């Protein structure tokens, strides 16, 4: 079985190629079968691999061929498989399969059905390569591959320029991070002589000191890639706009898999990060800042998908916080549970949007509880897990993160408090969504409720979002063991009760309206704050002024090639001389005679200046 691991990414890739080549001739049924079936097959293979691995948990490596060999630089097309790989592959193929199935109904009416599944399959293949790669260069291939697929899918409905704009923004902003990461790769290879992850981490631990400059720079460059892909500060601005893509795409790429690639990257190279405590601290702080920033922003949004997008940014912030404090297992655990409940929420919102004539504004919804019961329960369970209410999957993972953050060096309690504030906000914004959309009076009448191809994925994900917390992920051998001691009991109690408080607040404000906040909101400070948070803290505005517009301006100024002016000058001088000479050709004899005489006089005068031609003094 282990020798067949390359089939897992290959099957979706082949399916993508067939779909692309045959887009014009394949019948719709076959397109759906290929699209869903290929990912299903990959999921099945992953399951078999997993069973074999759990029976005999021995990591292995499979090398297919040497990608390129120049001097001692010889990265391979090779896969590495351990517990972490298994977790990631399961999430990608499992959740991926459900989302593909959902898509067959969601995209049913679309004219570019084949193109959609081709892109989606290609994405799965690239994402699998990313997590299976044995070396950082192959990982980078997957990394860029998912970026391009994300670009293609965000801009899937290309006729609308706004979608194209969002797609380009997503690609370019992440490319900024990717470039930092590429520089990191260059540095790592130059210093350590290999990009094979296991060998490289080994070499780093021999050659580098803990706290040295090189590991710090290397880790920060990798972190650059991670914050780009995982939409963390300061490169998070692309994710809310990326919601322009079809909603199942948002579920798969912009919630469950691709955006967690940065978390995976840091977890995979944790051996390097352990050498750079400063870098880890920065990871934790980036995570904390992001989770708070995004949670406040989510509170103000009115577009259902933007709420979920900011929520995703915020939850990945928790994962970064976990990585930063060395809670590797908790971070990956949260990655998995988040994939379940956030995919669930996105698919649920997809169902709403699908049956509500593409309505995105939550205040134009309402009362959907009785009309779309499957979707309602999906949202209830998904939001409960997102808010980390006890017994849901999100509770187990987030609780672990908060407790381990509390124990982290001196600033632990501060990180814990920040995370807790985030948890409160999370509970408020997620149940604000539930109360506004599903309760109250109906503003728009839905066309029906989900068919089976939508219901099955929703129900399956509901189950996973509920029980996912009881899974034990097989990463014990991958990460160093966390310390066994627990913080004081009160810390634990507070961590558990804060989300409940959040739900209560949401209920009082948005459902029973016993708590009236209108006065605060309508005050001038409240209004300013609302606008500030609604705009995502003005970061887009800032980037627009600081980077986008200057780039347009510079490019526009240079457009007509200023350097050509220099060559133009040479031409102009030539032409001027030419002009003079042409003028002098008058054809009049007296002009010619006069100028000859004048020339003669000048020559003679010059000759008198030359000493050798002077008559010698005193000569007889």
């Amino acid at each position, binding site marked *: 079985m282990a020798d067949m691991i390359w089939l897992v990414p290959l099957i979706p890739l082949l399916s993508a190629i067939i779909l692309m080549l045959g887009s014009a001739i394949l019948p719709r049924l076959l397109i759906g079968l290929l699209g869903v079936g290929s990912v299903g097959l990959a999921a099945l293979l992953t399951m078999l691999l997993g069973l074999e691995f759990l029976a005999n948990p021995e990591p292995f490596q499979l090398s297919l061929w040497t990608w390129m060999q120049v*001097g001692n630089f010889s990265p391979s097309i090779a896969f590495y498989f351990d517990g972490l790989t298994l977790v990631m592959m399961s999430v990608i193929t499992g959740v991926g399969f459900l989302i593909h199935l959902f898509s067959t109904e969601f995209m049913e009416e679309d004219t570019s059905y084949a193109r959609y599944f081709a892109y989606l399959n290609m994405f799965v293949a690239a994402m699998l390569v990313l997590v299976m790669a044995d070396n950082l260069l192959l990982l980078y291939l997957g990394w860029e*591959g998912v970026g391009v697929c994300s670009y293609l899918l965000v801009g899937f409905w290309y006729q609308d320029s706004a979608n194209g704009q969002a797609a380009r923004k997503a690609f370019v902003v992440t490319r900024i991070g990717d470039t930092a990461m590429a520089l990191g790769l260059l540095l790592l290879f130059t210093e350590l002589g290999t990009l094979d992850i296991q060998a490289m981490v080994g070499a780093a631990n021999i050659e580098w000191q803990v706290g040295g400059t090189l590991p710090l720079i290397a880790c920060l460059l990798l972190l650059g890639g991670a914050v780009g892909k995982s939409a963390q500060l300061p490169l998070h601005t692309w994710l809310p706009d990326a919601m322009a893509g079809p909603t199942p795409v948002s579920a798969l790429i912009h919630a469950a898999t691709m955006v967690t690639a940065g978390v995976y990257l840091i977890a995979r190279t944790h051996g390097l990060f352990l050498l750079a405590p400063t870098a880890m601290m920065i990871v934790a702080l980036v995570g904390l800042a992001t989770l708070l920033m995004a949670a406040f922003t989510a509170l103000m949004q009115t577009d259902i998908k933007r709420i979920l997008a900011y929520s995703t940014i915020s939850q990945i912030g928790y994962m970064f916080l976990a990585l930063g404090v060395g809670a590797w297992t908790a971070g990956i655990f949260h990655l998995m549970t988040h994939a379940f409940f956030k995919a669930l929420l996105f698919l649920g919102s997809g169902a709403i949007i699908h049956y509500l004539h593409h309505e995105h504004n939550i205040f134009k919804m309402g009362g959907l509880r009785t009309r779309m019961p499957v979707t309602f329960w999906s949202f209830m369970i998904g939001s409960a897990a997102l808010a980390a209410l006890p017994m849901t999957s999100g509770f187990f993972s987030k609780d672990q993160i908060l407790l381990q953050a509390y124990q982290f060096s001196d600033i632990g309690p501060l990180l814990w408090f920040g995370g807790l504030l985030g948890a409160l906000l999370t509970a408020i914004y997620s149940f604000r969504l539930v109360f506004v959309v599903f309760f109250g009076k109906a503003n728009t009448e839905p066309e029906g409720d989900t068919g089976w191809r939508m219901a099955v994925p929703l129900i399956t994900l509901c189950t996973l979002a509920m029980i996912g917390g009881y899974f034990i992920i097989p990463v014990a051998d991958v990460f160093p063991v966390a310390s066994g001691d627990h913080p004081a009991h009160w810390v634990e109690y507070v961590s558990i009760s804060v989300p409940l408080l959040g739900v209560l607040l949401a209920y009082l404000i948005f459902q029973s309206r016993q708590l009236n906040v209108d006065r605060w909101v309508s005050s001038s400070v409240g209004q300013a704050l609302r606008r500030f948070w609604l705009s995502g803290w003005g970061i887009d505005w800032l980037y627009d002024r600081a980077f986008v517009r200057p780039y347009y301006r510079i490019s526009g100024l240079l457009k007509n090639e200023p350097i050509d002016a220099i060559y133009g000058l040479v031409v102009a001088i030539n032409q001027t001389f030419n002009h003079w000479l042409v003028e002098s050709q008058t054809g009049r004899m007296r002009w010619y005679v006069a100028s000859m005489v004048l020339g003669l006089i000048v020559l003679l005068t010059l000759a008198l200046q030359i000493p050798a031609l002077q008559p010698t003094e005193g000569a007889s």
Partner: protein
Amino acid sequence: MVMINLILILLVGGVLAMLSERAGENMPRRVALTVVLLDIIYLLSHLSGMADLTQLQAPMPDDPSTWLMHFKAQWIPAFGISIEFALDGVSLLMVMLTLVLGAIAISSSWTDVMAKRGFFEANLLWTLAGVLGVFMALDLFLFFLFWEVMLIPMYFMIAIWGHENRGYAAMKFFIFTQASGLLMLVATLGLVAVNHSATGQWSFSYFDLLNTPMAEQTAHWLMLGFFIAFVVKLPAFPFHTWLPDAHTQAPTAGSVILAGILLKTGAYGLIRFAVPLFPEAALDFSFTAMALGAAGVVYGAVLAFSQTDFKRLVAYSSVSHMGFVLLGVYAWNELALQGAVMQMVAHGFSTAALFMIAGSLQERLHTRDMREMGGLWQQMPRMGAVAMFFVVASLGLPGLGNFVAEFLVLLGLFQVNPWMTAVAALGLITGAIYSLILMQRSFQGEPNAKLEGHSLTDFGRREMLTMAVMMVALIGLGLYPQPVLDMAQPVLQSLLEMTSVEIAP
């Protein structure tokens, strides 16, 4: 003789193509394609007769008998000028690229050239012949001859079959290359004279002129003569201004040959002549050269972004991509040099394809202005998908040839100068910006209202086949570049060894 035959087939083939016009309008292009394919078969048949290419021995740069092929005959013995050709892995790669892209160029002009087809195909074949001469001539006088000769048919192609502003573009192209060629001639004569005073022998042979002892100052000036000639052709910032005009105004086949092949003669000249003939001077100069390269990467990308003319945008992207070649050559280590060679090949395909797409659009829409385009994907999904492929290739998607090239250059460069690498890496970001805006303005967005009524036919079988060849080539180069790397490796290796011996005290 094989090398001379390769050139002669093209020269004679050009005459035949011209004459064949009498036999019918469609004959010249068929004759031309046949001639190029024949040339390819001829080359391959001789290669298969030779030793296994994957086990090329390292050719000694200064000993022609170790090269793959070598031919020498007296020409003007009084000045030591001979007809000397030689072939090693790098030149073989370039020769193959020239012939393949030549065939592709003929296919790309299958329907868009309507007037004087016979003379057009003849010029195309003669340009190819000139380029082959440049890649194989190792007598410096002969090299100069081919260098100048390849310009003339190219000039005609732009001046006769070009677009609205062809006269200006053709003249600009000609003057830039001619003027810089003159510098090379002066430098060549200077080098020969220095060699004569050292050895008492007149010789223009590359093999004799290597290792010519000379004063530091002399070496600097002579090196500069070669350098400028080659970077004008490459082109490097700030000598690139002829290129956007020439590319934009040339007919499609002309742009394909210009971008795909002619630019590579500049890169080839740097690797073959400018550095090995003056290793110490080149080393002293390397920082400046790399700075020009890095500046070109960024400058070309920034300018590409603001262009509204499809072809002009692609032309500026070439300036950016060729910056990587300059960086690779002057970083002068194995990784970077391999990257530079790889970039020459990969860029040949990706840019040729983009120019072909531009040509196809112009044929259908009668404009290159992207403000008149938009939403073309809807009516021409095949062309859109193909364009998307080459756009992501050109922005350096891993798995395709251009990525291997750029990554190797950056990796090699990083070992020499990390800060320069960081600047050059900005090209990855700016490259994405202009590449994606190209797709947006032409194929994506709402269908342009001005296009209503135009019947836009999608790519047909001939076009898809041509594109498929280039796609397969780029995927192959991206996932298994080893055959190309192996071909260049022994040559680069021995060049590196020779120059390091030279430089060592």
